[in-house]
Each structure stands twice: as C-alpha cells, then as structure tokens.
C-alpha cells in the first residue's frame, strides 16, 4: 500500500461571484472535498467545465488557500510548511507553457537559480533535464519563444522538474498540443512516475488519457466529488449514474 501524500479534509473554497445576477456575494467553487492522493500514483481529475478542477490543483501548491478544511502533505498541514519549499516540492504545469523571455536554458534554470544554485551547476541540470523531457541539448541556447508549442510544453515540464518536485500537478497539459505531442507528454508522465516515483495529479477532459495512464480517477462536478476510485473500475463499472453520463459525454457543467 502506498503512503498518503496529500490528504484533504472538508476542503471548501468560495470566491467572489463573478456574475452580478447571483444572489450570493460568493460562489462555492469547491464544496467539502474529502480525498487522499497516494504517493507514486497517477490521478486523473475529470469533470465538466467549471467543475473546480483547476481550483483544486491550485490549493495543493497554495496558489490559493481554501476557506475551510485542511490539506496535509506527508502528514504536515500545508499552512505549517514554508511556502517556497512547498511549491518546490509540488510542481505545476499549465495548459499553456508560458515560458519566460530568454533562452530555453534560462527557463529551465529559473527554479535552481532562485534557490541560489550557481550558474554552472544550474546549466548542467538544464542539460540533463532537456534530455529527460525528450529534447536535444542543441535547443538550450535557442530563444524559448522560437520553439514549437509541443517543445515549449516539454521545456515547461523540464523547468518544473528542475525543482526536483515530489508531486506534479498538471492542468490539462496536452490541451494545446497536437495528438503526437500530447501522446509524448503522457508517456513522459508515466515514465517520470516509474523512474522517479513522482506523485502525479493531472486534469484532463479526455477519458481516453485517463484510461491510458491513470491509476485513479477523480470526477468532479459543481465543486463536489462525484466519484473517486481505481481507473479500471471507473471505466468498466462506474458507481454513480452521473459518471456514466460523463463517460457518454452527457454530463453538463
């Protein structure tokens, strides 16, 4: 049995309501979420648009804090951890690469340089990581903006890996990519889990991707967990009727 990496207890998140017609000043984004993420597992977070998938991820590296409830990482409350250490341990990659201006090498070295790792050592790390994500070292001196979007996404993954994270949060990491580039990222995820033992939580709107790489599926709708369990069971025998609707592409947001 894998040990518990993240544990969420009664986690709720409210935000100021954007649409002015709402009677309430705040909208409930996540409602009393209780779940755990196990070390070394790949979890696919799915659900209709606006379900709260991105918001859930943002709580795990404290880009936002929940209104109520508690989140622990290896048993320690996130609020008791140093915020910078936490964010290095829990890396995040978004749908769009959003590389910084500058070279590929500078992008990958960003985290190490923040930590005060000397330029030479950081450059060595970048050289190693660019290969880890399946690109060649020749790209290192290129301006990041000159790469294809698929290459950029791998660079953004390498940039996050440069912090040597224990957990990877990926928010629709393949949505902006063509099928080949998307397949590459998925392989990379499976590879990182098996080689480095990373815990991976990724948001996807493609059940196919979850079927391919996920150990576990978490289905969200309207800020609540509809179903959470082993991927195999979710796809072959979903327990909740809404899960069946979702798999048929019929669950509305």
């Amino acid at each position: 049995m894998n040990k518990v990496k993240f544990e969420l207890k009664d986690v709720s998140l409210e935000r100021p309501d954007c649409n002015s017609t709402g009677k309430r000043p705040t909208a409930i984004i996540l409602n009393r979420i209780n779940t755990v993420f196990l070390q070394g597992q790949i979890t696919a977070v799915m659900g209709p648009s606006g379900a709260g998938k991105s918001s859930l991820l943002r709580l795990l590296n404290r880009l936002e804090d929940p209104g109520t409830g508690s989140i622990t990482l290896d048993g320690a409350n996130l609020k008791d951890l140093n915020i910078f250490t936490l964010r290095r341990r829990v890396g995040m990659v978004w749908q769009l690469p959003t590389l910084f201006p500058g070279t590929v090498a500078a992008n990958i070295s960003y985290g190490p340089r923040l930590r005060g790792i000397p330029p030479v050592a950081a450059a060595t790390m970048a050289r190693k990581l660019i290969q880890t994500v399946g690109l060649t070292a020749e790209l290192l001196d290129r301006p990041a903006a000159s790469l294809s979007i698929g290459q950029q996404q791998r660079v953004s993954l390498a940039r996050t890996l440069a912090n040597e994270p224990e957990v990877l949060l990926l928010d629709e990491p393949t949505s902006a990519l063509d099928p080949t580039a998307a397949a590459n990222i998925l392989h990379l995820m499976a590879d990182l889990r098996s080689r480095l033992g990373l815990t991976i939580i990724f948001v996807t709107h493609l059940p196919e991707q979850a079927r391919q790489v996920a150990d576990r599926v978490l289905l969200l709708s309207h800020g609540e967990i509809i179903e959470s369990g082993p991927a195999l069971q979710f796809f072959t025998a979903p327990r909740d009727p809404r899960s069946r609707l979702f798999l048929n592409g019929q669950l509305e947001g």
Partner: protein
Amino acid sequence: MLQYIDIGPGDIALALVLVGITLAISLWQHLDLHGDLLVGSVRAFIQLMAVGYLLQLIFNLNRWYLVVLALVIMLLVAAGNAYRRQQERWPQLFFVMLLAIGCGGLLTLTIVIAVVLKVKPWYQPQYIIPLAGMIVGNAMVGAALAVNRLTGEIKAHRDAIEVALALGATARQAIIPYLRASLRAAMLPTVSTMMTVGIVQLPGMMTGQIIAGASPAAAVKYQIVVTYMIAAATALTTITATLTAYRYYFTPNHQLKPPLKNTAA
C-alpha cells in the same frame, strides 16, 4: 539688467485676442471645443490669479509654517491627481501615491535647497515654492505613469506571475520584470527630455527667468540643476510607488490575488 515689462489689467484683456483666435478655429473647423475652451480660459484665469495672490501672501509673510503648509497642500493635490489617473484604483492607492511623491519629492527638495543652492533660511518662498512645484509636478506624472503601467502589466501577465510563484519565486521576484518595465516607462520621458532640453524646447522656468530679467547664462545654470533634480525626483518617486503598490496584488503568502472587479479594462 534689461527692462522688465509689467503686465497690466489692460494687457491681459488684450491677451483675450489669443483666446479669440482659438475659439474662431474651433468654430470654423467644427471642433466643438468652444464650450471647453471658454471654461478652460476662465478657469486658467481664476486659478492662476488665486495662486498668485496666495503665493504673494506667503512671500510677504515669509513664515516657515506657511511654506510647510503650502508643501503639504501641493503633496495632497499631487497624490490625489496621480490617484485619479489610475485605471485600477483601490483605497490605499492614494496613500501609496502620497508616500511616494512625499518621499521622492522631499528628499530631492532637501538636496537642492540645503546642499546645492544652500538657501538660507531654507524656507525662503522664492526658492522652495517654485522648486517644490516642479518636483512635485514631475513626481506626480512619473508615479501615475509607473503605477498605471504596473497594474496593466500585472493584469496582462497573471499567468507568467503565477508560473514564477509556482516555481518558488517570492512575490517580489515574480514581479520584478514588470516592475522594471514600469520604471523604465515612467523614466523614459524624463530621460528623453534631458537629451533634447535646450535644443528642441526652452524649459518654462528658464524662459520665465529670462523674461524676468535674468541673464541667459545664469538661467541655464538653474535649468541644469532643475533638470537633474527632476530626474532624481522621478526616479525616487516611481521606485517608491511601484515597490509599495505591487504588494497590494499579493497576499502575505505570496499568492496573486484574484483580479479586481469593476475596473475599466
């Protein structure tokens, strides 16, 4: 010294010919500006006359506390103006502007009055009032420009800022490229003015001194000091303003706050 021509009430009335020319053009070309032009002309007259009398009073009484009062009013008006020019406003922003213009302005003013010109006593209105006016005016424009740019940059680059935060950057580290861009944007007009001053345009103060009878050679020396003074005031004010303002956009835990609502795009 050359003859200084005093402007009498009749001469001012004659200057109305100039207003007439402007009005005529507006009417002729259907610019639809004549209403604003009339109001503007009247306002300019009243405001300047009022300030003239007020300054005359301060000059005649020559008291340090009156000078200080005038400086405080200048600062408040400038901070209010810089605040109103913002596309995105939040309550504390007025005080950010006040702090920035206050610190940048007073430090520069102190250097000019006490170190460069060695004015004695320091509160001689003839020096401190016009110098403070130029400093505060430029500091105000700089602060308004810098903070406007900074909020625009934050709005446009939320993604990149959160990426940096997620990689372990502090709020300050995440914002630094945008802070630099804002400072550069706010400093640029001052720097380009320094490049062309005297060649393309004669600064108002120098023109005024020359008309008032000062020799051009003496007037340029003042203008050189004033040019450096304005650059320093702008630099100090914009850096204080941006370094204070950016904090509002983050929580103490280095989280980027959600975008403000109800602000003009």
